[in-house]
């Protein structure tokens, strides 16, 4: 039934059960609805006394802090791998305050262990002289930190507006098919790759695109996802011809540089003009190669 019917024609207006139009129940009706003592037996349900309900206890327990909060770990008691410790110390030196190094420290932990494991966080906390809880609070805020174990490789498929318009949902499905996972964020069975959808990665010019192990690739078409995961599993370089790093300034072909004299007369441009004249006189090896083709 269309909700756009004029008000008078709405059949559910007679139906008091509808959520928006139900009339206020009368006092008598309310009284009737209340359970009288003895109703329990009639219904055949035994409601246990409140303090013995385990679910409630669990809720209480999770809200009550257990004893003292974890203190700053003692560096003499926590075993920290030397490279990790020195990387974190180097990061701390770069900032006026040591806490600024918490994101670099978590990056270091994640690079070493594959995720921000509780042990790794404790080690970083020991080096930085902060509580593990503090670092944990930072790690849970940021999308790129994994607070649970994840695959050895990571594929982030951008699913935001520009990529969506160009078929990002299909691309995400392709990657999940290739990885053999059912839901975004899952790791493949062999533990090799985790595929998930991600918010705008800032590469709408190569939409639809994906970030594979922190490098951008696009625009990806049918078959690319499968090829990428095959190459990754074989330990080869991934989608070489689709790397963002090798692309010229975006926009590709089309009318490019403005001929506005204000720009060509620009002080900084004079050098380029001279160089260009030189280049014209003597074709570069690049140009020669192009001509031959």
């Amino acid at each position, binding site marked *: 039934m269309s909700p756009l019917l004029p008000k008078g024609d709405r059949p559910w207006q007679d139906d008091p059960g509808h959520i928006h139009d139900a009339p206020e129940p009368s006092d008598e009706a309310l009284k009737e609805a209340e359970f009288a003592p003895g109703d329990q037996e009639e219904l055949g349900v035994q409601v246990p006394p409140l303090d013995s309900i385990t679910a409630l206890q669990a809720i209480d327990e999770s809200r009550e802090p257990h004893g003292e909060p974890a203190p700053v770990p003692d560096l003499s008691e926590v075993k920290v791998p030397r490279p990790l410790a020195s990387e974190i110390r180097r990061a701390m030196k770069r900032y006026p305050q040591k806490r600024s190094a918490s994101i670099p420290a978590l990056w270091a932990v994640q690079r070493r262990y594959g995720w921000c494991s509780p042990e790794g966080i404790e080690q970083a906390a020991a080096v930085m002289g902060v509580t593990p809880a503090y670092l944990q609070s930072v790690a849970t805020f940021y999308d790129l930190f994994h607070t649970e174990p994840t695959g050895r490789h990571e594929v982030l498929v951008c699913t935001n507006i*520009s990529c969506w318009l160009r078929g990002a949902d299909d691309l995400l499905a392709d990657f999940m098919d290739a990885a053999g996972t059912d839901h975004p964020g899952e790791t493949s069975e062999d533990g090799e790759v985790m595929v998930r959808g991600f918010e705008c990665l800032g590469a*709408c010019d190569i939409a639809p695109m994906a970030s594979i192990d922190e490098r951008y690739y696009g625009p990806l078409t049918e078959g690319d996802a499968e090829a990428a995961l095959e190459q990754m599993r074989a330990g080869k370089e991934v989608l070489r011809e689709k790397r963002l790093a090798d692309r010229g300034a975006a926009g590709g072909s089309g009318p490019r540089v403005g001929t506005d004299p204000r720009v060509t007369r620009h002080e900084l441009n004079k050098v380029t003009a001279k160089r260009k004249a030189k280049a014209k006189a003597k074709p570069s090896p690049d140009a020669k190669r192009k001509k031959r083709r």
Partner: protein
Amino acid sequence: MAAAAETRMLFRNIDEPRLASIRTYKRLGGYRAVQKAFKEMAPEQVLKELDDSGLRGRGGAGFSMGKKASFLPRGDMDKYLCCNADESEPGAFKDRELMQKNPHQLIEGIIIAARAAGANRCFIFIRGEYDLQGDILDKAVEEAYDAGLLGSDVLGSGEQVELVVHRGAGAYICGEETALLDSLEGKRGNPRLKPPFPAVQGLYGGPTLINNVETLSNVPHIISSGAEWFKSFGTEESPGTKVVSVSGDVRRPGNYEVELGIQTRKLINGLAGGTVGRRKVKCFFPGGSSSPVLTGEEGLDLPYSFEAMAEAGSMLGSGSIIVCDERTSIVQLALRTARFYHHESCGKCTPCREGTNWTVKMLERMVRGEATPIDLDTVASVQTNIIGHCLCVLGDSMAAPVGSMVEKFRPEFEQALERGVPSLNDRGGAGRGAQRKGREAREEAGHLSMAGGR
């Protein structure tokens, strides 16, 4: 001027091989402006030149850069300069290109801006996803230190400018300037109450100047050629060029550097090649996903400038145009937009946390065809209740575009109330996966994509 042409200032040598190395950058005239600023000009002169140029911030707010720098108090305390490279707005990718291709232009701009503001400690806050660009910047900063352009004695002037590249870890909110400061201090990236403004009390409680990558990349050009020269570009109120990221349903998505004031149609149809198959432009975001959408009819003939976009009820923002052609379902578009802000809301202020959440829920009901007319009015009213009621503008950034979509395409929403929106990507058979096996299951997966991993 030709019908559609770029005016390349920041992008002048963008495709020069090895431009990211200091040798090439210097050979092409780089680091001359910094010499001029330190050897021929007093800090006050540098500041005046920037102020006179009328350069407006390119990050989204469009505030005068010179004015912002002049708000920093004088005195001997530690002062900070943060370059905001946490470019995460859907549709924006100009800073990525500028950092990846020409990192030294940015570093030169930072050094000069630091002199103007008297800042001695500078940071580039780059989003964690830009790993390649972060590596390039790391290397460029190292080169600049080796060349004596950074450090405790810049170019023998006795001035100290230290620069650190700081990587984020994936949070859109950190692009908000006070959240950026919190994140840089090693905390969760929650915005702060303003005032006090960062210029007075920012990073580590000290005076802080925060500028976008593109803003700072303009600085060397202004200093080397002068404010008057700079003002000969663009319009009176929006001088200079703008790197515009055009994406979505266009044939040549990419970054185009144009003079502000160019006709929007020339940008979309000329430079970016128009829509595929010359389809009608249904609507477009003129300034990233947080700007209210303009329909093709009302927006294409406007000049692309801060003031013209504001007058049309939208904004230039970060200068990122997302074009949606006539196939696009507005309800789906609204849902995509709202989901992004729901995911990225830090949860500190109630209107934003709850408003984004309920907007997504109501729009999902509309897509499934389970909504009631009350939902549509509630969606509209939620948007007006978010705007202006939070510490930062993240909530507003959802409310403005979604509100504009409901306002401009109300019949389409009403249709969705009746029938829902058939497919996730409502484009008929256009999507290549339309006939795929298990397509429906995947659409479910698409619904879950935001929840992935968290």
